[in-house]
């Protein structure tokens, strides 16, 4: 199993870096431009996953498992977040019959 990093290293680190940064930016742009709570939420998940990817890449390049352990925790925490997030979205949907965040303007920004 020790050889896996070498295989991964056939692709330069920068590619991973650029790729996950791109994913991350897509996520950010999604969060900022979309108006549907679920889609925003998915964009956030995309951001988290780009982080996972990046951490894994770094971890492999450094032959250091810590990064991947971090990924594990991110996944677990993200799951908890998903649970809470979905619960919140469902709660709102039941009250206002919509998941469009523009409806949520009772509080001024």
């Amino acid at each position: 199993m020790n050889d896996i990093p070498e295989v991964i290293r056939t692709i330069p680190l920068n590619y991973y870096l650029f790729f996950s940064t791109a994913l991350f930016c897509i996520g950010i742009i999604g969060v900022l431009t979309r108006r549907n709570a679920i889609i925003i939420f998915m964009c956030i998940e995309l951001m988290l996953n780009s982080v996972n990817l990046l951490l894994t890449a770094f971890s492999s390049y450094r032959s250091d498992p810590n990064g991947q352990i971090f990924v594990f925790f991110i996944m677990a925490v993200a799951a908890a977040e998903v649970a809470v997030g979905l619960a919140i979205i469902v709660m709102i949907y039941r009250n206002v019959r919509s998941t469009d965040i523009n409806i949520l303007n009772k509080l001024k920004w």
Partner: protein
Amino acid sequence: MTSIILLSIFGILNLFVGFMKSKRVLMPVVLLFLAVALGATLLDWNQPKSYFSNMLSTDNFSVGFTAVMVLSTLFILPFSRRYVINENANLAEYYSLLLFALVGGIMMVTYENLLVLFLGIEIMSISMYIMAGSDKRNILSNEASMKYFLMGSFFTGIILFGVALLYGATGAFYLTDIADAAIRMEPGTAPLLLMGLLLVLVGITFKIGAAPFHFWTPDVYEGTPTVFTSYMSTVVKTAGIAAFYKLMSAAFGGVYDQWFPTVVAITVLTLIIGNIGAVTQTSMKRMLAYSSISHAGYLMIALTSFNDRSENAILFYSLAYGVATIAAFGVLKYVADERGSDEYTSFNGLGKTNPLLAFAMTVAMLSLAGIPLTGGFFGKLFLFSAALEKDLLWLIVVAVLMSAVGIYYYFRVIIAMYMKEPAGDRISVDPLATFTLISLVVLTVLMGVMPGLFSNLL
């Protein structure tokens, strides 16, 4: 560390206590839990230890902030009595969430590894997302919860990306290792490092509600049920600022010059936005939200000055600010529940109908405004002296000007309470809350008269 384990277990236990028929046992039980946790925390005093291959370490810094947070929670709980009466509320769950959030907070001040920091932030934040929406049928609460959740997880993502970059630059999650790498600042990895630092900074800035990422604060605070708002603005903020300070000092203390301009800019912006924003509010709750932004700004002054006074100053200020804010929110809760609105006008004549509530509120406002005889004054004094030692005179001028602005909006409440005709009848307050309010007032005044007791703990 003991307190983390204890509180986790207590939190779970409490869920099962909630299955009992009567909801009335819950609060005493939770208060007992917290008292035990506080005791356990204080046992670690002057006994630095590290756990889990150095991922967590308790030292006086962490013990001090843990104690402040546990104490704050202890003070907040009695104000949730109204929920006890409402048998339908999921009280046990909310209490457990409070305890879990506290665990997260403690992790945020004991971490030695970014993983623990991340977990702490998330444990705390996720609990808070739920608590923000705990008033399920209330659309405002829903909205607060949703906003807090979307924004919170968005910024969690940003922190994580920053952490990933830091990991890429330094190959470690340990603060000490990062500090080593940061001092070396190898040209190859420096951009990654700085970018990572910036992103983490942005994320934590959000979590403590500092400008320019403060915009969620007023909305979320307003929509959230008041008890949890007070939790947000005290415990969460304390944990956030302590974590921030620890990160900056333990990991990036060596590159102070690199982050100083950013942090100082954030500080000034926060001070200005928080104070100016508070002036235009008509709702007490929103005012307190903006005030919490501004206090984040004051706390960050200690960060910008970054010297041996900073830790103590932050601790003292956190305690003083926390105590005063809890009192303010406690009174606000009673007034808003009884008079149906959290506008300033609903405080009218409170001095006549409820002298005690009014007095507690007055002391709280004086403390927040930083008037002597209250803890808030010495809090500000210590912060400012820390900054002056670094010769940040201009920063102090800004802060002083903003404090003066602060007096304006804090005194509006006092004026309403004492100098207007009553807006309603006497508000009945249960004995426990009365006792808590009195304790808060006494503590505030004690900090204001004998600051030496608290000022050099670390």
